[in-house]
């Protein structure tokens, strides 16, 4: 089992004292090689679920296990490193670093990796560069390595973000509405990449409200008001 969520609860406490139950008793299992899509209307708790699985949003209760480990039991530093080693993220807003070049944005995924995880020294750095270039080449950005994100189209930005997510060969890829801002053509490229990643032995968790996007998944779960529905 690569990812397992057990009875996750998450409630947001609004500033005005109001409470939003974003996740109510959510459980999920995801094996290596699997591509799972979660669909649901806006505000149903999709992003909350994804971030909880992504070790960035601690649940109020319930357990999160990734590769058999409990990230929320770890120290925050250890969890950060764990995240760098095991997880890749793709977001609707791309979240590229504006002042880094396309290549550097991909390589930024290496910064957090501790020494000895294949990211140190001149040779390793060259390896990183080669792999980053290859990924970008693969996503049709081979001639855009030195450009900044602001010089790219939305589709190109998302492809750059995909390359970044894949650089560290994560076990689990978490995609939050990755096609939300893209044209059909680029959407197809992204979904194909996710599929390929799963086929290559990785696990993909995609959250989206887009029916089209979920067609690439092995399994589609429906969510409403913080719960899976039939």
């Amino acid at each position: 089992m690569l990812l397992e969520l057990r009875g996750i609860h998450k409630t947001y406490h609004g500033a005005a004292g109001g409470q939003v139950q974003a996740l109510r008793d959510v459980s999920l299992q995801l094996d290596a090689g699997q591509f799972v899509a979660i669909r649901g209307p806006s505000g149903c708790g999709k992003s909350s679920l994804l971030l909880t699985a992504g070790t960035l949003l601690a649940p109020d209760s319930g357990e999160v296990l990734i590769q058999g480990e409990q990230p929320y039991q770890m120290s925050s530093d250890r969890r950060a490193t764990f995240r760098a080693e095991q997880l890749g993220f793709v977001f609707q807003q791309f979240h590229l670093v504006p002042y880094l070049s396309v290549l550097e944005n991909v390589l930024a995924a290496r910064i957090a990796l501790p020494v000895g995880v294949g990211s140190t020294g001149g040779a390793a750095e060259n390896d990183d560069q080669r792999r980053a270039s290859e990924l970008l080449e693969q996503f049709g950005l081979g001639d855009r390595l030195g450009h900044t994100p602001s010089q790219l189209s939305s589709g190109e930005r998302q492809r750059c973000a995909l390359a970044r997510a894949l650089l560290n060969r994560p076990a689990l890829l978490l995609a939050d509405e990755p096609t939300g801002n893209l044209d059909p053509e680029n959407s197809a490229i992204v979904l194909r990449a996710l599929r390929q990643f799963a086929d290559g032995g990785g696990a993909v968790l995609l959250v989206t409200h887009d029916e089209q996007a979920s067609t690439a998944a092995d399994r589609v779960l429906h969510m409403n008001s913080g719960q899976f529905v039939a």
Partner: protein
Amino acid sequence: MKLTHLITREIAHRKLTFGLSVLAIAVAAVALVAADMVVRADALATDRILSAKQAETEEVLAEKVRVVAAAGADLEEAMRKHMKGLGFNVLILPEQQDPAELHLSGSLSETMPASYADRLGDSSIMTINHLLPTVLKQVKWPEQELDVILYGTRGEVPLMHRALKKPVLDAVAPGQMVVGWSIHQKLGLQVGQEVEFFGRKFTVSVLHPERGSTDDVTLWIDLNQAQEILGLQNLIHAILALECDCAGDRISEIRREIAGILPGTQVIERHSQALARAEARTKAKLVAEESLAAEQEASAATLARERAARAELEAQHQQVAQVVIPLVLLLAVAAVGVLAFNNVRYRREEIGILRALGLRTSQVLYVFLGKAVLSGIIGGVLGVVIGLLGGWAVTHWVGDWPTDSPLLNDLLASPGFVFTLLSTPVLAVVLAAVASWLAAAAAAAQDAAVVLQGE
């Protein structure tokens, strides 16, 4: 890729905000360096000014001291002459002569035999050196209708038991005349001129300068001629005894000795010219000493005034520095802090994704504090350089730097100032780090989930 890469790239990307931070810190550093420079320059200038003043007054005082010393030496020499060489003079008069007459008119009327002088000369008297038999009478110069004192002198009577000393008063040769100041002034006499005196012809041989005594109304001629004019052949009025070996109170001894040889005479002490000169010199020495004391007082006062003025100026500058420096530091901290907070707010998305990529809290902190430290180093060094140049310019062109030696050389020789120069960039780094600390901590504490949720 390294974390430092993030710092340098971000700085290059947002040059303006970084530039503003650097500027704020540089301004603070400039204020620190300039203030320290001004205060130290003050102290240096004070030293220079005061020591120059000191040297100047010392020179003046040294000159005064020299004058006083010279006056003292003059006096000492005069006293030595007076006491040893000249001693003091005594006048031997007939017993019945009232000395008051001499004091009142400079003239004498009682006489004694001229042989008294020879008798004294032949005696074994030890206490006196030179003997001058004289006639001394106030007369009217008939040809000129002028009252004068006629002084007949014949030079010294040799003291038999001793080798003849160099005469202290020259005799006046027969037919010659020595004329006091008032007389030759009134009559317009010239040396070598012939005058008629009581029907006799005299040649003016010496014209005395003004002495401010009866000397000014005195005519000196040969004793014999004077005795003839006055009808006092073989008679004299007085014997002047000069250069008595009588330092201290030996006058009574002289009196006793003379009374034994010349009965019917009296001995009076003469207020000698040597003494008058000594008194004048004493007075000169006193005046010089007083003027020295006054000068010392005045220069001490001047120095004190200058010192007070400098102290006031320094205090003023220090006061300004004490207000300006904290103010500038506070403003710099505020500016850097605001800029840092703005920067963090601007980079929320970036922080979120970096956290998602596994950056630890300490690494996020490092990114922001590293930037602050960099701005501190650059701003600090820049501030020191600008402060140095500015301070130099101010003291060079505007200030009243008192010497040719450039201020910078003097300041750089002072370890305290060098310490300021070296410590200012360090302080600037601390300042920047402190000012950015809250913002960096806020960045590190930022919840990635909130940003990444796709707000």
